[in-house]
C-alpha cells in the first residue's frame, strides 16, 4: 500500500493527466446527447452576454451591407404586393382564403456569434425557447439556407451551420428537379459545398441554381447555391457537384427561424411507421 502511494506521488503528473484527460474526453464525447453539458456553450449568461456586447460593436461595421440587403429584400417583397400587380379580370369580391393556410412561420433573429473557420461551425442567435424556438427547426437568411437549431436556451439558441461535418440538407437542381443532398466539403471553403448523390441521368449546367427540395425541413425552393463545377471529388455511381453557396456565412447578421406547423405531425407519423417496421 505504501509503495503504491509512493509510486503514485512520484508519477503524479501522469495520473493527474489521466484523470483530467478522461474527464474532458467524457464531456466532449457526450456533448451531443447529453443535455446537462450544454451549460458550457454560448447560450449561458456570461458567454452569451459577452458575445452580444462584441456583436453590438461589430454591427456598426456592417451597417451598410445590412442596409443594402434589406433594401433589396424590401424591393423584392414590394414586387409581390397585391397593389403592385394589376388585375386583368373583372374585380371580384374579396373572400377569406380557406384553401391556403399558413404552414411555415418565420421568426427573425440576430446572429450574435458566428464562426466559419472550424471543421464544425455553429452560430448563436438571440432567440430562445421563450420565443417558441425548438430543437431541429430550420434557419434561413434572406438569400438562402443557413442551418438548423442544435440547442435551445431560454433567450439564446445555437444553430448548427451548414458548414458542419454532420450537416445534410436535401437539395435539388432547380431546372431538372434531380434530388441530392448538400454537405460541406472537407476542404473547408466557407463559400463552397457539395451536392452529392445526384442521379447520373441528371444533366446539370454550370450556374444552375440548387434549391431545397420537398424532403427537407425547409420550405421547398429556398436557394442553396449555384452549381460551380460539374465533377467534384468522389463522383462514381452517383454524380457529385460543387456548389457555390448562396449565403455568405462570414457576413451573416440577421436570420429567420422557420417554424413548420406540420413538423410534429410528420415526426410523429414517421416514428409510428418506424415502430411498425420493427
Amino acid at each position: 500500500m505504501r509503495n503504491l502511494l509512493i509510486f503514485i506521488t512520484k508519477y503524479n503528473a501522469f495520473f493527474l493527466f489521466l484523470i483530467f484527460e478522461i474527464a474532458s474526453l467524457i464531456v466532449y464525447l457526450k456533448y451531443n446527447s447529453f443535455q446537462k453539458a450544454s451549460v458550457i456553450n454560448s447560450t449561458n449568461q456570461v458567454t452569451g452576454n459577452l458575445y452580444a456586447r462584441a456583436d453590438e460593436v461589430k454591427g456598426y461595421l456592417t451597417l451598410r451591407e445590412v442596409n443594402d440587403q434589406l433594401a433589396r429584400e424590401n424591393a423584392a417583397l414590394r414586387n409581390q404586393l397585391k397593389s403592385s400587380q394589376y388585375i386583368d379580370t373583372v374585380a371580384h369580391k374579396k373572400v377569406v382564403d380557406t384553401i391556403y393556410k399558413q404552414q411555415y412561420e418565420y421568426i427573425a433573429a440576430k446572429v450574435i456569434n458566428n464562426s466559419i473557420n472550424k471543421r464544425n461551425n455553429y452560430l448563436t442567435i438571440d432567440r430562445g425557447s421563450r420565443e417558441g424556438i425548438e430543437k431541429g427547426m430550420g434557419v434561413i437568411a434572406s438569400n438562402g439556407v443557413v442551418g438548423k437549431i442544435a440547442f435551445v436556451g431560454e433567450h439564446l439558441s445555437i444553430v448548427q451551420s451548414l458548414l458542419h461535418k454532420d450537416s445534410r440538407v436535401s437539395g435539388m437542381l432547380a431546372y431538372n428537379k434531380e434530388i441530392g443532398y448538400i454537405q460541406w466539403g472537407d476542404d473547408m471553403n466557407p463559400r463552397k459545398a457539395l451536392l452529392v448523390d445526384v442521379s447520373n441521368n441528371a444533366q446539370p449546367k454550370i450556374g444552375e441554381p440548387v434549391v431545397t427540395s420537398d424532403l427537407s425541413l425547409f420550405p421547398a425552393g429556398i436557394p442553396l447555391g449555384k452549381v460551380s463545377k460539374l465533377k467534384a471529388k468522389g463522383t462514381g455511381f452517383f454524380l457529385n457537384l460543387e456548389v457555390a453557396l448562396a449565403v455568405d456565412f462570414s457576413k451573416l447578421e440577421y436570420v429567420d427561424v422557420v417554424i413548420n406547423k406540420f413538423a410534429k405531425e410528420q415526426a410523429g407519423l414517421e416514428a409510428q411507421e418506424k415502430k411498425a417496421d420493427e
Partner: protein
Amino acid sequence: MSRIILTNLVRFLVLVLLQVLLLKNITLYNLSTPYLYILFILLLPFETPNILLFALSFILGLTIDAFYDTPGLHAAACTLLAFVRVLFISITVQKDGFDNEPEPTLSIMGFRWFFTYALILTLFHHFFLFNLEVFRISEIDYTLSRFLLSSVFTVFLMLVSGLLFFRKKERK
C-alpha cells in the same frame, strides 16, 4: 507571491478575451488559425504544483470551449499540453535553478530555449486539437496542413508577444 497570482490572473483574462474576440475571427486561407491562449499555460511559473497546473489548464480549456461551443475539446488538448510541459521542463531545466528563474518567459530563458519550448508544446496541442475535432482519417491531408500552418502562426504570435513584453533587467 500575490504579484505572481495577479499577473497570471490578468494574463488569463487578457488571453481569453483576445482569443475569443479577435483571434477567433482570423483565418489565413481557411488553413491557419492561431490559438494563442495556450501561452497562459506555457508561462505559468516553474514552481506551480502539478495539481494546480492541470486544474488551471483544464479550466482554461473549458473557458475557451464555452466560447467555441465545443465542450471538452480544448480542455482535452490543454490537459495534454500541461502534461507535455511537465515532461519538457523536467528534461531541460535543472531543479535547483528555480530561485532566479521564476517563469519560463522569453526574456528570462533566452530565445533558443523558449523557441524550442513553445514549438514543441504548440505542436502537441495543435495536433491533438485538430485531430480530435475532425476525427476522420479520410481528411488527414487537410487536417495535417491545418495543424502545421496553425502551429507556425501560433508560435509566431507567441514570439511576438514575448518580444513585446521583453524586459532586459530580469536576465541576471
